[in-house]
Each structure stands twice: as structure tokens, then as C-alpha cells.
């Protein structure tokens, strides 16, 4: 009984941390995972009193993983709130700003949050129903991942071309007639993609050190610069007028319910795809699912992309047991904490059972928390010291970048921020910045 109780306690702590990381754009769950990893020795010794109750070190490490997983899951739920009310998303939620923010401008910010929660929770249930059969497709005996690995170069090339070619923004700087604005939109999408790619090639040759000896990753300042700070800076620069919010539960008719189911299904499948393929993030998964879905309704778009994010966060922890690869910072941290072996038998590995409990519990808890906090924001968001919050967040990110990666990391972060501002100011999709990972991976395979 005690182990189960401890799982629930760490789940709850993880969810509460996920609320903080979700509400503070730029503070990513990967940062928390990294900090936790650095402090794992201290955490184990401070929890050593549990040894007297029959809890061993391995189980304490499982509890730390449960905490990280719950944070990651909750983060994907709560992230919609700053996206909607502050217009300040992190990278995963970047594409949700337009539909959610436009509902906010209609006084329906709460509806946007509720629909997102439905999409995310739908993805949890959808993925839970699929994870067992998918294990046999991705791994032994069908080995879909091995096949995919052989054609990964072409998959990445196809995704990159699709992402650039489907850019819908029009740039009028070089002519306003005919197809010129659309062509310029695609051209600038390609420019942002290649600038990010070149940035990626450079940073992988840069060595960073933490001034206090923490584990350093060059990706942290790069991604925080590309996706975290630019929207925060833009939020400081824009002051939209927002009407009073209507706080009514969204009512879906039969057609909307069926449509929502398809949105959850396509979003979840895209999220699973993202979790399998390296270098592809939720934003790209969202573009793929929106193309597959062919749905332009903003409510369905919110449901779809919330499903992509949550399904991806869910499945990276399953994928870990099938192909032994960590596809997110949180998954890598989990793999560092506990020994993960390939799931070969018909039965679930013991640690996966704990992780599934964490995912289901944190998903359920996060759903209600998102609705609650969304309602609270809708009622009181005029009273939130918005600019102070954003300035503090920018300061916090700079501080974390310095602590983890030193002065060189700060330089990478600054250049990343400049690159991340390009798509915002030129009005193209921010997901083109994922060239930072995709281009180096493509070059590696060539």
C-alpha cells in the first residue's frame, strides 16, 4: 500500500510542478528534469528515512521518474493557459496561439482552455488504448521502427519539404499582386528553416560548461532562445485589448463530438509519430495532423494540437521501452535514473506499470486543474501583473542558461533568440526553427 501511496504523492507533486512550468512560458519540463538529475544524489539521501519502511533506492528512483513524467504530462495540459491568455506559448504550443488567442478576443478564452483539456485528456485515453498493440508494431515482431530508421532520411526530407511548402503566410514586402506574396511566404519559411539549420550545425560544435559543474546541454540555451524568449519579448511589445470573458462550459453537438473524436485520433497518431522520429517536435506533428485532418475550424485545431502534444509526451515514455531511445529531455532523464530494458514479453515491465499509473493519474488530475485554473484566469486575468511575470520569466531563463551553460551558453541563447524572432516578425510559422535539429540530423544521414 505504501508504494502505491508514494506513487500518488510524487504524481501530485509532479502535477503541481507541471502547473508552474506550464504557466511560466520558457520554463520547460526538460529544465526541471535536468535539475532533478543533478540533484538525484541529494534527493535519495533526503528520502533515506523510507528505507526503514521497506522502500529501496531503486523505488526512490522510480518515484523521481514518476515525478518527472507527471510534470511532463501536466505541462502539456496547462501550457494552453499562457498561450491563450498571455499569447506567450512555449515551442510545443506555438501553433495554438492563433486559434486560442482569437477565441480570447471573442471573449471565449475559457472555451479554448476547456477544448484543449478535452484534446489532451482524449489523447491520454487514445494512447492508453493503443500502446499495447503498437508495441508489437513498432518493436518485435513487426519492427516498424527498424524499417522507419532505414528510410528516416527520406522521412525527414519529406517532412521538411511539406512543412515549408505548406506555409500559408503571405509576405507583401516584395509585391502585393498575384502569387508573389505566397511565394515570398514559402521562400522566407525556407530561409528561416536554413538559418536555423545553420545555427544547429554551429551549436553542435560548441562546447559549454556549467560554472557550477552541472550537466550541460547545448540544446537548452538554443531551444530556450529559439522558442522561449521570442514570444515573451513580443508579448512585452504588444498590448492587445481583450474583452470580458464568458465563462460557459463548451457544448458540443453530435457533429462536433464526432469531429472532436477525429481531431483527438489524428492528433494522437501524429503525437505518436513525433515520439518515434528523432528531430521532429510537436509543432511539426501538429502541421502533419492538420494537413491529414483538413480541418480549418479553430476549435478543432485547438483539440488536435493539444492531442499531439499530450500524445507525444505520453508516448516518449512508451517508446523508451520499445526502442531504448529517449526522445525528450524528460525521457532521457528517466533513462538516466532507472535501468530501462527492451520490452520483449507479453507482460508489461514493472517500471512501465508505475509510469502508466503516473500518466493516467496525472492526466486525470491535470484535466480538472486545467479547467479550474483556466476559469480562474478567465475571471481574473486583468488583475495578473502580466508584464512583471513576463520580465521575471525572461530573467529566470537567462539565469538558468548561465547556471547550466555559462557565458558561451548565453551567447548561443542570444543568437537563438534573434533566430526565433525572425518567423514572428516575418509572419511565418515558428516550427521552421526546428531546422536547428532537422538539418544536422539530415546531414548526419547523408
Amino acid at each position, binding site marked *: 500500500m505504501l508504494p502505491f501511496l508514494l506513487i500518488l504523492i510524487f504524481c501530485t507533486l509532479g502535477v503541481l510542478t507541471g502547473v508552474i512550468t506550464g504557466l511560466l512560458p520558457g520554463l520547460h519540463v526538460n529544465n526541471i528534469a535536468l535539475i532533478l538529475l543533478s540533484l538525484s544524489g541529494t534527493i535519495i539521501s533526503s528520502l533515506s528515512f523510507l528505507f526503514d519502511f521497506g522502500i529501496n533506492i531503486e523505488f526512490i528512483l522510480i518515484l523521481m521518474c514518476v515525478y518527472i513524467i507527471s510534470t511532463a504530462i501536466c505541462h502539456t495540459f496547462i501550457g494552453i493557459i499562457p498561450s491563450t491568455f498571455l499569447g506567450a506559448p512555449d515551442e510545443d504550443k506555438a501553433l495554438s496561439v492563433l486559434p486560442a488567442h482569437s477565441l480570447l478576443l471573442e471573449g471565449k478564452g475559457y472555451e479554448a482552455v476547456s477544448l484543449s483539456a478535452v484534446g489532451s485528456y482524449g489523447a491520454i485515453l487514445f494512447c492508453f488504448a493503443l500502446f499495447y498493440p503498437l508495441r508489437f508494431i513498432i518493436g518485435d515482431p513487426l519492427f516498424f521502427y527498424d524499417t522507419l530508421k532505414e528510410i528516416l532520411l527520406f522521412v525527414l526530407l519529406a517532412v521538411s519539404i511539406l512543412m515549408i511548402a505548406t506555409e500559408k503566410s503571405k509576405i507583401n*514586402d516584395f509585391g502585393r499582386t498575384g502569387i508573389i506574396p505566397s511565394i515570398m511566404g514559402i521562400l522566407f519559411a525556407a530561409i528561416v528553416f536554413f*538559418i536555423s539549420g*545553420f*545555427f544547429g550545425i*554551429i*551549436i*553542435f*560544435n*560548441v*562546447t*559549454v*560548461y556549467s560554472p557550477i*559543474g552541472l550537466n550541460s546541454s547545448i540544446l537548452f540555451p538554443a531551444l530556450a532562445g529559439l522558442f522561449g524568449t521570442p514570444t515573451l519579448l513580443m508579448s512585452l511589445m504588444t498590448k492587445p485589448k481583450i474583452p470580458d470573458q464568458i465563462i460557459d462550459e463548451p457544448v458540443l453537438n453530435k457533429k462536433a463530438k464526432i469531429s472532436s473524436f477525429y481531431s483527438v485520433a489524428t492528433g494522437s497518431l501524429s503525437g505518436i509519430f513525433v515520439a518515434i522520429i528523432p528531430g521532429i517536435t510537436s509543432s511539426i506533428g501538429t502541421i502533419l495532423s492538420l494537413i491529414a485532418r483538413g480541418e480549418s475550424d479553430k476549435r478543432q485545431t485547438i483539440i488536435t494540437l493539444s492531442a499531439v502534444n499530450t500524445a507525444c509526451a505520453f508516448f516518449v515514455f512508451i517508446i523508451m521501452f520499445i526502442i*531504448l531511445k529517449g526522445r525528450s529531455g524528460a525521457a532521457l532523464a528517466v533513462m538516466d535514473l532507472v535501468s530501462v*530494458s527492451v520490452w520483449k514479453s507479453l507482460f508489461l515491465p514493472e517500471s512501465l506499470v508505475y509510469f502508466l499509473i503516473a500518466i493516467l493519474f496525472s492526466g486525470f488530475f491535470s484535466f480538472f486543474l486545467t479547467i479550474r485554473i483556466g476559469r480562474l484566469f478567465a475571471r481574473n486575468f486583468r488583475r495578473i501583473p502580466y508584464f512583471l511575470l513576463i520580465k521575471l520569466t525572461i530573467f529566470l531563463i537567462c539565469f538558468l542558461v548561465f547556471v547550466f551553460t555559462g557565458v*558561451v551558453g548565453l*551567447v*548561443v541563447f*542570444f*543568437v537563438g533568440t*534573434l*533566430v526565433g*524572432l*525572425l518567423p514572428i*516578425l*516575418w509572419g511565418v510559422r515558428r516550427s521552421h526553427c526546428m531546422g536547428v535539429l532537422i538539418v*544536422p540530423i539530415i546531414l*548526419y544521414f547523408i
Partner: protein
Amino acid sequence: MKKMKLKHYLMIITIISIILLYFLSKLSQAPLINIYEIQNYNGKQVIVEGIVTDNKLTKYDNQIITIENNNTKISIFCQEKTEVDFGDKIQAKGEVQKYKGDWELFVDGPSNIKIIEKGKNISFPLWQIAQNPSKYINQNISVTGFVESISNSYFCIVDFEKKIFLPVIYDLGKNITIYPGQKVIIFGRFSFDEKNFRYKIEINKEGHYINPLEGE
């Protein structure tokens, strides 16, 4: 108009910043060091260079490569499988750390291991083939081993510890003189013998050979 100017300036500043970052990256790159200096770089990123003398896969598909340069050796722990072969000259970039009392280089992924020169005229030890036999299947390869169990149409070669056996099927027309325990280099076609469910190497084409190693 003001916004337009800002985005144009941003484009120029970004490109200049990336160029500056490129030069900074050249300055902050991990240094190329000699293997014997490794203990001076604990916890630091370095690049080491050497010839692959050992190459193993763990059960988690991590690769442990040993390289040698100037009579000093170091183990490289790579988190994923690489294309590195015995005899290749490689450069590896990673973090210096101590594992079970020995210095090793921890490498994030295959992208941090560059093959500078493929091993030419290298004869693989049997253990190298045994690590990943499918990689060499249906190819002409050169392999080194000790002769064992000679019969009319085939003999076996074994490794030093006699743990790995590989049948060598040879053409009776070839004038071959071998004796048990002799160390030989065999150049032939490596394939899978479906009938006997085992790998084999065949000496049946022009250019295939068995060379005794003199003085062994």
C-alpha cells in the same frame, strides 16, 4: 513601415550574429589531445584520435570502442551503434570520465565519432566478425584465426580462446598447406549456410587465398 524596418534589421543582425557564433564555435571547440594526456581533462570535452583495436556492443546497443595511439589506449563509450570497424582510424569527441577506475571518453552519439580513414588491407579478428556478422554477409572479407579440425573440403578457424568457430570451405584444387594451431589470414566470401544454420567463409574464387602468418 517601422515594423518593416525592424524585421529587415533583424534579418541582417541575425545573419551577422550567426557568422560571429561560427567563429566563436571554432575558438570554443574541444581540443584534440593525445590519449596519454586524458587524465588532465577530467569532466571536459576533448577530441582523441587513434586506430580501433577493439569494438564491442553491449546488450543495450551501446558501443565500446578501444582506440590506440602512440602505444596508449583508451575506451570510448558511445550511446548508440556506430559504423566503426576494427582497424579504422577515428576521431571521437566526448567527455572525459572515470569508469570503474579507468579513464574513458563518453560520447553522446555516432555523430561525434568521425572515421578519418577506413582500415585498408585489414584482416579482421574473429571477434570483430562475431559482433555483427550480418554487416559482412555476402562480402569478400579478410579474417584472422587459428586452424582447427581440418578435413578434405573444409576446416575451421577459431579465436585465441577457442570460443568462436568459423568453417572455411575451400576448393580442393587449391594447393593449401595448413596444420592445426597455425595462425592464418583468410580472404574469402562470408555467407550464411542455411542448410547447416551457421556462418561460413568460402575460398572458391580467383583472388581468394589462405596465407599462413609466418613466425606465429
